[in-house]
């Protein structure tokens, strides 16, 4: 079966239709529609305030959309109850621009948090009380991002690049089926950014994960995205395979 036939046969991992959201008087998303197929990598680009982060957050209802529908891994996100929503969120990794590790906890506990939703009780809150199997799984996630030797270090004593790798390990600990990343390397210096991005994308490809990431780096968008979606003033204004786009063309999108 060809990739196209496969895409037709399996429902998209993420399907957004007519999504709108306003904060006060500002319309952040206007009638946004988007579909992301299984295994696809989609780069979301757009100026600051174009609605990229809000779009990602709305898909998990970290922000409640005002109108529209979101189908995520064949779940109607907007109609889910609290428990079902938590179980769905657990299947989606989310890497934030600011890493968002718990600063005073050790790295291993932070990674372990990825298992919070599938473990009842406090077992996945702190590595000191976690069962052996979970600790070992967290350790192997750390190994996959190349930081096994920092397991005992406090999260607030890591460099920016290390923090983001730990956040990626935390997302891997979720055993995710889909990954969101909101400007994953925007807070890092260029060298660290390239390194983390390469590590992240390598893991994504190896796991054959579906990926939606926002970025200001147009080269990242073209290199790592199978498709580029451009948002402007809360509307989708570009949606094209990255093979059909080039850097100068994308730059003019910002003007």
């Amino acid at each position, binding site marked *: 079966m060809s990739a196209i036939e496969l895409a037709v046969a399996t429902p998209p991992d993420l399907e957004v239709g007519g999504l709108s959201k306003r904060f006060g008087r500002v319309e952040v998303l206007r009638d946004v529609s988007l579909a992301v197929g299984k295994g696809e990598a989609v780069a979301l680009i757009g100026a600051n305030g174009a609605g990229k982060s809000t779009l990602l957050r709305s898909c998990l209802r970290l922000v409640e959309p005002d109108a529209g529908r979101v189908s995520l891994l064949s779940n109607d996100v907007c109609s889910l109850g609290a428990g079902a929503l*938590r179980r769905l969120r657990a299947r989606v990794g*989310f890497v934030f621009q600011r890493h968002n590790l718990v600063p*005073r906890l050790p790295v291993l506990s932070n990674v372990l*948090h990825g298992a919070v*939703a599938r473990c009842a009780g406090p077992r996945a809150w702190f590595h000191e009380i976690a069962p052996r199997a979970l600790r070992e799984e967290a350790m192997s996630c750390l190994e996959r991002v190349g930081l096994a030797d920092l397991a005992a270090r406090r999260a607030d004593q890591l460099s920016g690049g290390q923090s983001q790798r730990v956040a990626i390990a935390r*997302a891997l600990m*979720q055993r995710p089926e889909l990954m969101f990343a909101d400007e994953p390397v925007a807070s890092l210096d260029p060298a660290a950014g390239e390194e983390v991005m390469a590590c992240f994308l390598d893991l994504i490809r190896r796991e054959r994960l579906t990926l939606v990431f926002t970025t200001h780096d147009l080269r990242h968008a073209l290199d790592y995205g199978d498709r580029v979606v451009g948002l402007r003033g809360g509307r989708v204004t570009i949606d094209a395979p990255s093979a059909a786009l080039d850097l100068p063309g994308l730059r003019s999108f910002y003007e």
Partner: protein
Amino acid sequence: MSDLPRRLELPSPLGFALLVAAAALVITSLQGIGFSASGFFSGLPHMGRMLGEMFPPSLERAAPMGKALLETFQMALVGTVAGVALSLPLAVLATRHLSPHATVYHAARALIALFRTVPDLVWALFFVVAVGLGPFAGTLATTVDIIGFCGRFFAEAMEEAERGPQEALHALGAGRAAVIAAAVIPAAMPSLINTSLFSLEKATRSSVVLGLVGAGGIGIELQVSMDLFRYAEASAIIIAIFILVVAVEQCSAWLRRRLI
């Protein structure tokens, strides 16, 4: 030339009237409390005599004093531990973004405000009536006082805890309990430890006076000694209190350095 800041100006008529009113309030208050300079100066020899009789301090009743001092510390310790333990869940309910409902939030805030604004001596009077004379009443009063104190500061610390990690935990499917335990409390921990240790110091100081209303501790010893004009005994008690309070403060400062 740009504007030079102005020199001292005469107040406006309204400002002047307010100043006069404030001065009048202070003067009538002085009258209200029966302030008398002559009373103060004629009292000085009494004070001198009393101080003279206080020295050397008498250690005649060292054993019961030691026991009362220990009881004072025990009241403070148990009251603080119970108060801190009860404050934590109450503070969660009194933190806007963690509280399950706006009504619960306002109720928790109101309860903490009530515990905080009513002085501990009044709580002690209340508990002496409720559970009888003795250190248990004092410990309950201390507990309530500490809940009022810690509840407020714990809630503030949780309110100020960084939101990013909390959002990250929500995003990976964590429930409220996990977010509070694994993200909010670790972030607020330095503040929680600091406030708890400060409560122990505060509870020690207040346990000293709770004895005056019969709620246990060394306060009653001091009152009896003063009432019977045994100033040498009283001075020994005051010195003992001083040593206890300073010791607790030093221990708490040491713990603070170790833990934070």
